[in-house]
């Protein structure tokens, strides 16, 4: 208790020096790219920027899957020469149902459906209902897998779209099962980003069922509104002839003939082949370019288009054409995203907050130091040395993990410094009491260290518990506050139980005083 080996001394000093070293990258410029350079990131509240919390529409993932399944069912049954009636999808239950043409075909229907590639992978189960209808139900595991995939894919697409806007250091992370957090430092007006992320940009090419014009659309046909005239609706076949995801490039351009803004695109080989086949087989008919369930354009096919190039025009201006080209290049989102929380801090407020945080930290640190010096003398100064080391180590650990520092994080540091001296105060007061009981300086210090240790551990444990909860249930800035306090508890234990105690012991060993400065 009253002896510290040279090795122990050296390691404590080494940890403190390492702390100083780890703090340096925050104050200096990186000398060379090869030097490891880890520093604290400023949070959006200090740096200025936007935070967007986006929700992935899982219902639409299910609905999409069911539409594909219904389409596949139709193709499979028709291919096997079987008939069906009343084909319908139920998103809530995750089923596609239909009634066989005649009950005698039921067995053949079931056999055909169970042989579909998707069924082999156990993605759905086929069963006959008591009323004779056949129900195809997506398995929950497959749906969960699809949902996870949808979020992962959405994150990728979001990243591509944001990268295309030229944002610096964007951070895109998953939150929970169906949410995405987008953090954009330096972007103080996220309106364009919100617009870009709020567009699914699913482009598909379908045939227009002109025969159904004006009539109630039959199965496999849906009335979709025109993009520029939402009141006007066209009957569009559900079957996707060409998928817009088969694009290799898209760019905004001015149409040579009309002088209007348009988007030029190029298919990859799969898309080009499908596009050529479709146009060749349907010369004279209308096909529709559908973007997010709205018809952008529905031109008549004059001749087969084999070059793999196309153009969309539909009343764009420069911005909307550029944005659509960007969206098509980045790819479609597997499901619509909607913003459910946004927070934006302007750059001037961020600068104000840094200043406020720094002033508070400086003044608070100064007040505690003066207090400790006035009330605890020499041992108070040892506590102050430990306090400085504490601050350095907190910054060092935050830098090492390249953690984010927010204004609440700075408050956490400040409170850690305020509470850190508690350990020193406990030890000092205990020594005073022991001296008052006529103990020798050595015995008093020993008793002070011994008795205070369990109290120090107790009080830090309770603080740690409260902040673990805060970290577990909090979000953003509050988590940051809890994190800095948790780091602070660790550094406090190190600096008070080892560093300041060692300073006291070494002073005692050096001078062998008859009276302690308490």
């Amino acid at each position, binding site marked *: 208790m009253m002896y510290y080996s040279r090795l122990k001394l050296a390691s404590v000093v080494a940890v403190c020096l390492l702390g100083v070293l780890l703090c340096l990258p925050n104050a200096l410029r990186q000398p060379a790219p090869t030097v490891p350079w880890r520093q604290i990131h400023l949070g959006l509240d200090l740096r200025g920027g936007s935070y967007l919390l986006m929700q992935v529409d899982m219902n639409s993932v299910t609905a999409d899957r069911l539409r594909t399944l219904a389409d596949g069912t139709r193709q499979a049954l028709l291919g096997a020469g079987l008939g069906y009636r009343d084909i319908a999808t139920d998103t809530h239950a995750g089923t596609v149902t239909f009634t066989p043409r005649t009950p005698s075909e039921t067995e053949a229907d079931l056999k055909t459906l169970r042989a579909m590639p998707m069924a082999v992978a156990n993605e759905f189960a086929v069963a006959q209902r008591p009323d004779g209808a056949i129900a195809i139900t997506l398995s929950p595991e497959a749906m969960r897998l699809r949902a996870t995939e949808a979020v992962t894919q959405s994150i990728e697409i979001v990243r591509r779209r944001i990268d295309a806007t030229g944002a610096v250091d964007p951070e895109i992370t998953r939150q929970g099962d169906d949410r995405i957090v987008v953090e954009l430092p330096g972007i103080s007006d996220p309106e364009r980003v919100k617009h870009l992320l709020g567009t699914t940009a699913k482009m598909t090419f379908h045939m227009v069922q002109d025969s159904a014009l004006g009539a109630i659309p039959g199965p496999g046909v849906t009335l979709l509104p025109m993009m520029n005239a939402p009141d006007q609706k066209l009957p569009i076949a559900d079957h996707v002839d060409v998928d817009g995801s088969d694009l290799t490039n898209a760019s905004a351009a001015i149409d040579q003939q009309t002088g209007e803004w348009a988007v030029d695109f190029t298919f990859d080989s799969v898309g080009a082949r499908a596009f050529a086949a479709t146009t060749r087989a349907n010369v004279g008919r209308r096909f529709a370019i559908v973007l997010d369930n709205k018809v952008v354009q529905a031109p008549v096919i004059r001749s087969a288009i084999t070059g793999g190039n196309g153009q969309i025009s539909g009343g764009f201006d420069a911005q909307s054409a550029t944005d659509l080209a960007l969206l098509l290049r980045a790819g479609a989102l597997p499901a619509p995203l909607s913003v459910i929380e946004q927070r934006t801090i302007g750059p001037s407020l961020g600068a104000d907050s840094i200043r406020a945080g720094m002033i508070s930290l400086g003044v608070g640190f100064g007040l505690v130091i003066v207090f400790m010096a006035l009330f605890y003398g*020499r041992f108070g100064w040892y506590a102050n040395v430990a306090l400085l080391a504490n601050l350095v180590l907190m910054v060092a650990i935050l830098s090492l993990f390249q953690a984010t520092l927010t204004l609440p994080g700075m408050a956490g540091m400040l409170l850690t410094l305020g509470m850190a001296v508690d350990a020193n105060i406990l030890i000092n007061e205990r020594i005073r009491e022991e001296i008052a009981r006529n103990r020798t300086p050595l015995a008093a210090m020993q008793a002070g260290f011994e008795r205070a240790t369990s109290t120090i551990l107790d009080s830090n444990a309770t603080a740690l518990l409260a902040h673990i909860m805060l970290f577990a249930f909090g979000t953003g800035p509050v988590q940051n506050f809890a994190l800095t306090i948790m780091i602070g508890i660790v550094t406090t234990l190190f600096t008070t139980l080892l560093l300041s105690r060692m300073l006291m012991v070494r002073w005692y060993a050096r001078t062998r005083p008859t009276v302690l400065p308490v």
Partner: protein
Amino acid sequence: MFSRPLLRFVPNGTRINFMRGRFIGLATSAVLSIASIILFLHPGLTLGLDFRGGIVVEVRTQGPADFGQVRAALAGQHVDAAGVQSFGAPDDVLIRLDAPPAASADHEARTQALVDSVRHAVATLPGAQVLRADAVGASVSAELFRDGMLALGISLLMILGYIWFRFEWEFAVSAVITLILDLTKAVGFLVVTHFEFDLVMVAAILTILGYSTNDKVVVYDRVRENLRKYRTMPLAELIDLSINETLSRTLGTSMTVFLAALPLALFGASLSSFAWVMLFGIVVGTSSSIFIAAPILLLLGEKRLRRDARPPR
């Protein structure tokens, strides 16, 4: 200053008879807590954006704000101008609007779109600048509220569990009763000051609960030590002795935490209300260790903890 301390809080051998005033302490605490609960029921807490949902936009105008102009600009974007208020400096304007009713299908989208409308309105004001623009949808605010309450509740339970594990049950129960009394007073303080209750405030309350627990643990530790040391001393006297022995430390630590939080309250910008709650909590937490937790421990433990002090049969 560099060797012997210049100042001291309490001289050695201080013996203040705290337990004599225990009923006054408990009564004062009860009155304050009951008043806080009444305030909590009416008018109630001012919920912050995190828990209430809706939008908050802070705008800095060029020169002192012309509220008429701001309202007119908002009306131009079909935004309800009722939520315009001043805050802080004369050139700062706060626009606060509630979320559209959750019953409508697209209320989330409308909440988010409201921010853009406000931005467009601000853009028409010459030289005006958006400092901060937040929009929280109804589903998120409900979740944040639930999580905040869970964090508070579970923390209280864990503190109870920890003290139960480390001390006898009388200590744990009196600590948690005291913490709940502390908590009600903090809530009353929030109501009186109109500080917004949000996640950051939950953090402040949890921090002061943690701090208050520390303080009680230190006093209890001493009570337990003295219970072993003075096996025949009456409990009231023993608790008084323990409080007096730890008084210097109690005041010293409260002082350093208070000094650390003070600049944050004075210059802490958006965290200043957080820091004021901290300061309030430090004062309440420190005094409750002496005036509330100790008397409750005395009431609960008079028979059980002091078996040796009973007169021999």
